[in-house]
Structure formats: C-alpha cells, structure tokens
C-alpha cells in the first residue's frame, strides 16, 4: 500500500516537474511552425516585390536613354536597326488586335456555353462537358500555337482568303480565343450558379419562358461576375505568348487588318531572348520596358476583375 502511494506520488511529481518544460517546448515548437508557415505565405509577397524591382530597375535604365514621350507616341518599333525607333504603339496594336479578335470569339461563345451549362443542361451532360472544357484549358499554349500555324492558318484562313501570308493575326486571334473559352465559360457559370433560386422562381411564376429567365433575370443578376470573367480572359489573351509567337508573325505593324502579320509585346520579348542581343545593351533593355507595360496592363485588368467579383459576392452573401 505504502509503496503504491509513493509510486503515485513520484508520478504525480514527475508530471508537475515535466509539465512546464513540456509546455514550454510545445509552445516553442508551435511558434517555430507558425513562423515557418508565415514565411511560406510571404514568398508570394516577395515574388511580387521581386517582379516589380526587376522590371523597374532596367526600365528606368531604358528611359534614361529613350524619352518616355517617344516610347508612347512613336509609331515605329525598330530597336534592332538604324535608325532606332522605340514606339510601343505598333507592338500594342498587334497585342490589342489579337486580344480583341480573341474576345470576339471567346466572349459570346463562352457566355452562351455558361448559360447552357447553368440553365439548360441536365446534370449528366454538365458532368461530361465540364471536364472536356477543363482538358481544353489544360492544353499547353505551344501546342495551340502549332495548331494555329499548321491548321487554322494553312487550312482555314489561307483557303478562305487566298493570298494571305502564313503568319497572320487572325489565326492567332482565333486560337487565343479558343484558349480562353473555358475560362469565360467556367467563371461565368460560377457567377450564374450563385444567383439565388428565388429570383428564377419569381420570374417563372410570372409566366416567363426559360429563355427569358436566363437572359433577363439570371444574366443581369450575375453581370458583375460575368464582366469579371471577361476582363480576366482578355488579360490572359494579352499575356499569351506561344500562340502569337508561332502564328502571328514577327513584324511590328501598326494595323487593324487581321490578315496582316503583326508582332505582340510578348512575341517581341521571346524574339529578343532567342536572338543574340548582348545583355545590358539598350536593345536588350527594351524587353524590360515592354515587360513592364505588359505587367501594368494585365495587373490593372486583374485588379478590376477582382473588385467586380468582390462586389458581386457582397450582394448575395
């Protein structure tokens, strides 16, 4: 009996003695884990800062030698020839031509797909179509570029418009459009799925057809989410690189004719990095100035799209 009591006493005192130490150890380990996890999250902030610092440093160097007015107003872009011209407008025109063409393909098709999936399709059909669109979204852009060059340009555009050169903005724009269809469809469908069912039921009760419910009730109610998906998709189109590098050509061209060969900002950056332009030269610095322009454009669009999505969520939650 007495022995047992001593045993019990020692074990109790052991708990008492070890208690604070273990608690301290546990506390220390918890703090270390907390810190390590915070650092992981902070890598993303570091990435953004590094992108801005990288682009800014060389862009400032570039604008010491080239006036910003020339950069924004000159209509010629010929950094690799004399006389050198650094007018981003012709690269911007190529970029916008492809992006607008892609939007003309993807926005109506993507939105109609979203309406069909959200308002009409039975669930078995939805569960077939959505993975197919996900596969389309996952096709690497270099593959789409090859498709744009060897099929859309050679077998479609050149047949429909004889005499068109193999490199043209139209074939790139169509395929970039195909690339962003899944994005528009999936994000717009999410927005429509978030519209409360009572709104639809109210409209049906008033005698609306399904088409009227979809187009006059659901789409307007989901509008900010739909517009957000449009902006995000166009921003993707602007930043797209391999399709335009392979299919749109390499001639900076201030034109609105989609059958012409053009060069986008992204394709120019690839062209310079593939060539033997010496690093540190003014010609090489152009890619940072162009990259900065690209970064700012897409960033502005992404922020606008997020703002719209946030407003949309506030309305229905």
């Amino acid at each position: 009996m007495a022995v047992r009591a001593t045993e019990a006493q020692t074990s109790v005192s052991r708990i008492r003695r070890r208690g604070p130490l273990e608690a301290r150890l546990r506390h220390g380990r918890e703090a270390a884990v907390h810190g390590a996890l915070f650092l992981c999250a902070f890598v993303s902030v570091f990435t953004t800062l590094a992108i801005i610092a990288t682009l800014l440093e060389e862009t400032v160097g570039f604008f010491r030698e080239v006036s910003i007015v020339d950069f924004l107003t000159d209509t010629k872009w010929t950094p690799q020839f004399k006389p050198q011209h650094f007018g981003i407008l012709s690269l911007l025109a190529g970029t916008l031509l492809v992006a607008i063409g892609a939007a003309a393909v993807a926005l109506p098709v993507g939105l109609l797909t979203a309406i069909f999936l959200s308002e009409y399709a039975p669930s078995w059909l939805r569960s077939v179509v959505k993975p197919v669109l996900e596969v389309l979204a996952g096709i690497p852009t270099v593959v789409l570029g090859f498709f744009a060059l060897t099929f859309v340009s050679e077998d479609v555009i050149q047949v429909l418009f004889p005499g068109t050169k193999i490199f043209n903005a139209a074939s790139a724009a169509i395929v970039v459009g195909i690339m962003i269809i899944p994005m528009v469809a999936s994000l717009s469908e999410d927005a429509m799925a978030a519209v409360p069912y009572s709104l639809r039921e109210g409209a049906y009760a008033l005698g609306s057809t399904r088409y009227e419910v979809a187009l006059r009730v659901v789409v307007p109610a989901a509008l900010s989410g739909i517009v957000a998906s449009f902006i995000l998709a166009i921003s993707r189109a602007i930043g797209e690189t391999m399709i335009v590098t392979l299919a749109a050509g390499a001639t900076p061209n201030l034109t609105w004719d989609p059958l012409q060969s053009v060069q986008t900002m992204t394709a120019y950056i690839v062209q310079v990095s593939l060539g033997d332009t010496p690093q540190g030269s003014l010609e090489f610095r152009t890619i940072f100035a162009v990259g900065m322009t690209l970064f700012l454009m897409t960033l502005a669009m992404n922020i606008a799209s997020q703002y719209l999505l946030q407003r949309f969520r506030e309305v229905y939650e």
Partner: protein
Amino acid sequence: MTVTQAGFRRRLLARKATAVGFVILAIAATGVGIAALAVLMVDLTREGIGRVSWDFINAFPSRKPEEAGIKAALWGTIWMMGLTAAFAIPIGVGAAIYLEEYAPKNWLTRVIQTNIANLAGVPSIVYGILGLTLFVRAMELGRSLLAGSLTMALLVLPIVIIASQEALRAVPGSIREAAFAVGASRWQVVSRQVVPAALPGMLTGIILALSRAIGETAPMIMIGALLFVPFTPDGPLDRFTVLPIQIFNWAARPQDEFRVNAAAGIIVLLAVLLTMNAAAIILRNRLQARSRG
C-alpha cells in the same frame, strides 16, 4: 377580347420561337469548344502518330529530322517537374495552411491574399523575365535546371496555394473543434487532422499545377533553356531543354519533316498531360464520393 387573345397567342408563339432559337444557339456555342478540341486532337494525331516510336522517344535531337528524338527533352521535363514539385509543394501547402489555419484577420493577411490572386494572373513571360534576372544572373545559377525549376515553382505557386486553400476550407470546423477539445495544439490539429482530411483535394490542385508547369514554354525560353541539347542532365546545375521547347523548336522550322516531329512530340506531351488530368479527376471523384457517403 378575341383580338387581344389572338395578339397574346402571336406574342407567345414568337416568344417560344425565340426560346427555341436561343437553345439551339447555346448548344451550338457549347459545341464550339468541344469541336475545337476534337479537331485539334484529330489533326495532331493524323500528322504525328506515324512518327511516335520507341526510337523517337529514345533518340537525341539531330539535324536530320528522321533521326531526331526527344530523349533530352523528356529527361529535362522529368527533372524539372521533380525539382519544381520539391520547391512548390512545401511552400505552397505551407502558405495555404498559414492563410487558412493561422493567419489573423488583419491588413497583412488581406494583402497576402490579394497578392496571391494577382500573381495568378501575371503573364508567364513576366515570370521568365524575373527568373532570368533573379536566378540566372543575380544568383548566378546560370541557365541551369535549378534556375528553370525555381522560376517554374514561383509560377505555379499561386495555383498550389489557391487549390490547397480550397481543400482546407472544405474540411468541417467540427473536426478542428473536436481535436482542440481533447487538448491538441494548433499544429497537432493541423498536421494530424486537417491536412490528412484535405489531402485528396490538395493533391488534385498540385497535379493540375504540375501539369501547367510541364506545358509552359515562354518562361523557359526566357531563362535560356537550350534549343539543341544532345545530352541528358546529370544534376540540378546542368543545362537542359524541356519537351515544349523541343516542340517549339521543331514547329518554328519551315520543313515539313520537322513539323511531323513537332506533332509527334506534342502527342507524347499530351499523353503525359492527359494521364495527369485523368488522375486529378479520379482523385476528385473519389473525394466527392467520400464526402457524400
């Protein structure tokens, strides 16, 4: 009375006709995406399938198109995927755990969260410029596998973080409360209860992120992955090429024989990607079945 009834009937008929017309339009639009994918697959298969063979997979690039193969590119892709996963998975999952399970609701957390959403939208070529300046030049890693993988890890990090956050958010709060109630510390709750429950969802996101990394071309061109590599890399500091670059190299040449090689390379690349996508979909379906059951 009869006049307005007739008028109503006419309008109703017109409304029903518009409705039918709209359904046809919507179905046609849904078909566009599917048809585009089908045409792409058929066209590439027709062009390249004859060239896919063991010799093609096991040969180095060559100036003679009929002798050229993708051995160097395939090994480069495998190396790069492994290294990218080694960097991106721990950091991405760690960041997601921090944001979902630890972060206080303050301005810094909001900044980090907004920032991740923005990073997901930065064009991949901008990551290439970052990789070239930071890893290749400033850290003097050269145009190595390591520099390429670090660049790719930064690029896919937002995807891994966002997917992992969604998976963590789907774990019911009751699991956490039960674990806390029996005296578990926060890390014990997270590491032994929450993460295992969220694992299938996280894996799906990770697989999709890695399949994005396998297909990316532009950033690898920027950091200077080689166009012509007649060797397989032996370590992380070796120079390298990857499948998309090999495809780009062949696709950009005017000769038809090289284009056939490009199509064959694409078939191999797509086979790898579709396998990964299928794995992700199966995982997700399992997950859905389990959460229902």
